[in-house]
């Protein structure tokens, strides 16, 4: 109760939009409440007022899911090479450097070994903050290595996705990361190991159309957009009237594309149960 009162006080001290016109990062886009970082971190970045799920960076996500001190990162030295010398309004290398500075990550996925609820597993976690979580050569390679590492150690793979799709700046090589990750999952399954997919907001296009949907269990966070084509492009291309819940986790669940919608505060317990069940032969 005390927290709710705090929140409404903060609400009255609306800081207004930042200089770039966007609402501040800690303002809930759904109910307008404002929070300090530490307040949001306490609730795993879920709005205590309305339950809106704020984005979570890869390392924070690993902190939320994995047992304390259990995570050892792998393949952290992988970096993109700009194979096409891609240049749109700015060079790709500049965008990469900027993303690296902003996130402290080498690319849009972090992989490594760890444990969840006492069950050893491999983790492959995406970060939407790094160029929209886009999948290029490095993300594809990291995901493939995560599958190999899980198969070698005989443990399940837990993957958390958040991605706008394939990375345009690596052209056709990015499209090839779809079959590459699909083949990696096939190898993992041949080794008899399960993959549990957690889709966070948003999981779209190339990532949805490759490894993300191949999980033995596939769940999503509430309100996550999960679509091969996002609402704006569908609207522009087809001029169709979109349903209010177009592409959302809730709609995907209703149409049979998800096993469950799991609120973030219950996610660790849920994944632990699933890992326990897969473990129990």
């Amino acid at each position, binding site marked *: 109760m005390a927290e709710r009162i705090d929140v409404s006080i903060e609400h009255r001290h609306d800081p207004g939009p930042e200089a770039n016109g966007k609402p501040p990062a800690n303002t809930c886009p759904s109910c307008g409440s404002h929070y300090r970082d530490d307040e949001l971190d306490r609730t795993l970045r879920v709005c205590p007022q309305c339950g809106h799920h704020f984005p979570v960076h890869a390392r924070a996500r690993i902190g939320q899911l994995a047992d304390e001190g259990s995570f050892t990162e792998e393949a952290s*030295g992988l970096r993109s090479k700009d194979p096409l010398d891609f240049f749109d309004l700015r060079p790709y290398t500049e965008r990469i450097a900027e993303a690296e500075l902003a996130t402290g990550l080498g690319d849009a996925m972090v992989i490594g070994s760890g444990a969840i609820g006492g069950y050893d597993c491999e983790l492959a976690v995406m970060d939407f903050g790094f160029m929209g979580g886009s999948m290029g050569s490095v993300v594809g390679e990291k995901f493939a290595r995560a599958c190999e590492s899980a198969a070698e150690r005989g443990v399940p793979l837990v993957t958390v996705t958040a991605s706008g799709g*394939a990375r345009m700046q690596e052209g056709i*090589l990015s499209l*090839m990361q779809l079959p590459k990750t699909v083949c990696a999952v096939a190898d993992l399954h041949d080794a008899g190991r399960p993959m549990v997919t957690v889709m966070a907001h948003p999981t779209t296009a190339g990532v949805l159309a490759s490894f993300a*949907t191949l999980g033995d269990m596939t769940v999503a966070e509430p309100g996550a957009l999960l679509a091969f*084509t996002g609402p704006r492009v569908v609207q522009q291309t087809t001029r169709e009237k979109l349903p209010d819940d177009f592409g959302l986790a809730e709609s995907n669940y209703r*149409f049979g594309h998800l096993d469950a919608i799991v609120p973030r505060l219950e996610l660790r317990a849920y994944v632990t149960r699933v890992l326990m069940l897969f473990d129990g032969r």
Partner: protein
Amino acid sequence: MAAEDEIRLRERLSKLRSLPLLRGARISGELSKLQRQLDRIGAPLDEDEIWRSVKLARHEERPYALDYIDRICDDFVEIHGDRARADDLALVAGLARFEGRTVIVIGQQKGRDIAERTRRNFGMAYPEGYRKAMRAMTLAERHGFPLLTFVDTPGAYPGVAAEQHGQGGAIAASQAIMARLSVPIVSTIIGEGGSGGAIAIALADRVLMQENALYSVISPEGCAAILWRDANEAPKAAAALRPDARHCLELGVIDGIVEEPPGGAHTDHEASARLLARALSAALGDLEGIPGDQLRRRRRERFRRIGVFTEALTPSAAPS
């Protein structure tokens, strides 16, 4: 710049020479094909030339999947429906006779006139289309028939119903089946190889591409709209994306380029089909006699290797 192209191709040649085990018994055929293509290489394509090839790939007189199937196969019996919801006419599949043996063919099909274009949904399949393709793949596996796929789509259909029926999941599942098949698979990009909609039927042992075809992660228009914030910058986006056959070959994404008649495939459907049949025959010949589990392993290794990155030794990876 031509020298750089040459170096890249030569590097690929020497890589192939040093890794014969990864490419199978018929490695020499592969080598001579690359060598011939190296010989034909001229100056690299500039923006105008890449844009010309975009237009050729989308030319309305360009042969479509059924035009080729009719010409290169002796018989073709089409299958219909995904056994769940519908028959998606943007994707055709069936049993066919190719050079005296039964094969399964799958292709995206565009339409020639307004009525047929609408019926074929401009070659943009719904999940139902990919599920029909999966039926055909399963058929190939069950009876040991090689699989030939013909890719020609602007992309998977971006509509509300397509999303509700699981477009992303269908594209993934189709690739997952191809990763499991133990029969030879040859995929050819014959027109537009548009993103996820294309790769859904192109996880193959050999990936060929016609001279003027495109293979791209996003349409030049889509890329321009996002990165240039102006769809009219599509020619610039196309030049940056390099979706043409030669760049795809250099990047190791495709295994060979299929020649077209001078002026493009649309100028002579018969000649174009003969050239395609010859390439398919050679590719199937390369794969003949390789046991299924090896085919599957090499197919996965083929895609496992694609990607360009650097790797610095990290404290955890370095010997301490």
